[in-house]
């Protein structure tokens, strides 16, 4: 097997002295959707933030074979990692267009122009709203903008933290369709979801997280059966 795009081992993350994620291991290959599912408070967001370099972590982490443990966030972006965080973190006082431009802060002007066309093709809605301030968008539009902004950096690994959170089912379906499209165009996706069934439906592989540990891992199709049990005891209803 070739080197995975992202691989972590013995990976622990603590807030001060309280450890939230304990000694986990995970691999993501090329053009693969990997999902991490688990209840609220399991440590999923913590994991994504640490992988992006926003939170400090202990253990090994390699991206495309290189040790990236000491890299700053902006250097990870430069390598092709990108996170759409749970709270989106848009530039509310700036226009949709400026948000997207800044998403391509690390790429050449030419790439930025092409990236913008690509985002507007995927999200025609954003094109209609390009002069509008990001802070005035609806929830679905904000999620589209957050994903569009992330795509502007031409990521090789896109990490999505609860992209369906608070969105109407129709928009969720749309977002998930775009996620599979991205995978098919060669982007690897690390998808974190509480909405386990929807995530497992589009994912290739899955990890289940409980209290900072991976308790189950396997092919997404195999886990769907398991997940039904899991869902009942996680108390997730769709």
């Amino acid at each position, binding site marked *: 097997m070739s080197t995975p795009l992202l691989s972590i081992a013995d990976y622990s993350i603590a807030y001060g002295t309280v450890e939230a994620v304990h000694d986990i291991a995970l691999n993501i290959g090329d053009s693969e959707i990997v999902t991490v599912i688990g209840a609220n408070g399991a440590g999923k967001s913590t994991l994504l933030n640490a992988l992006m370099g926003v939170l400090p972590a202990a253990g090994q982490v390699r991206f495309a074979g290189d040790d990236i443990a000491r890299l*700053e966030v902006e250097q990870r972006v430069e390598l092709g990692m990108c996170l759409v*965080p749970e709270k989106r*973190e848009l*530039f509310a006082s700036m226009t949709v267009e*400026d948000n997207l431009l800044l998403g391509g*802060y690390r790429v050449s002007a030419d790439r930025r122009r092409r990236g913008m066309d690509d985002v507007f093709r995927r999200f025609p809605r954003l094109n209609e709203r390009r002069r509008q301030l990001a802070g005035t968008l609806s929830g679905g539009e904000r999620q589209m903008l957050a994903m569009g902004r992330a795509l502007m950096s031409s990521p090789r690994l896109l990490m999505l933290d609860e992209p369906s959170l608070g969105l109407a089912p129709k928009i969720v379906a749309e977002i998930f369709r775009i996620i599979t499209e991205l995978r098919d165009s060669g982007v690897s996706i690390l998808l974190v979801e509480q909405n386990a069934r929807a995530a497992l439906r589009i994912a290739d592989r899955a990890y289940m997280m409980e209290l900072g540990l991976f308790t189950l891992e396997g092919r997404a199709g195999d886990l769907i059966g398991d997940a039904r049990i899991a869902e009942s005891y996680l108390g997730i209803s769709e």
Partner: protein
Amino acid sequence: MDGLILLFLLQDGLTNGAIYALLGFALVLVFAVTRIIFIPQGEFVAYGGLTFALLSIGKIPSTIWLLLVFGIASCVIQLWRTRYLLTLRSFIREIAGGIALPLAVFFLIRMLARPDQSAWLNFLLTLAIVVPMGPYLYRIAFQPLANASVLTLLIAAVGVHLSMVGLGLVFFGPEGLRAPTLTDISFTLGKLPFTGQTIAVYAVTLALTGGLYLFFDRTLRGKALRATAANRLGARLVGISVAGSGQIAFALSSFLGAISGILIMPVTTVYYDTGFLIGLKGFVAAIFGALASYPITAVAAIAVGIIEAFASFHASSYKEVIVFMLIVPVLLWRSLYAPQIEEDE
């Protein structure tokens, strides 16, 4: 009071107000990007003005030594901080920015300092000395505190202010200095004379305001600074270095400070500690704009300048008091009606 006096006072107020506006912009910018309430803003005014004054009598300002020290210190700190990530390219960049640049300025000044040197060249040389101090200072004193609270940053800013005033005394001595105007053009409109200095202030302020607007509205760098101010985590996630934004903000701060210092030299005797009071007036204006709005800051700065002009005409010994009293109603109004400024994210 007759009409001419009124016009004189308005002109005087507008001229000073323009300077306060520049300083107010710098304070708003630095606070928005770094959350630092930048008390030492005025020190760049004194350093700029005094450096320019020394250059214009052909002396070599000893601030070039300070520039060297700042540059080397910031370079060493940065190399240490990034020791695990160092590449040949980043190493060369650090050496170029922290050591080669101040050395080049150092030798340039020694070559070009002459009593009959043109005022405009001295203007540029002054900027070459004072502007890099801004980013150096950020790296030395503030970058290590990037995640600290606003209060901690304020305390650090007070510390930097005190040490810069002290260094100012060491480098410039206790005497005040003045310097000639940048341009001798002057004309009279009706009975109101416009001197070279007033014209320079208006022209430079307008040009800088326009330039800053274009920078923030049109360039990716400028937008990145706005993005850092709007959402620091968001900015990091798109690959904007918050430390890099901080350095640019500080470069603009020292740039605006130094220019203000040069502009006031013909009409004000500047001492090593004069900057503080001038900076404080910019601060009053910036507070009107809640350290967030450039247009309100500009209008408030002009108002501060005009009120100060009238106060010094009618009650000159109370002039500073009257100006600083302005801040009380603003603070009251802000604390009653404005939403709390968010502490960290």
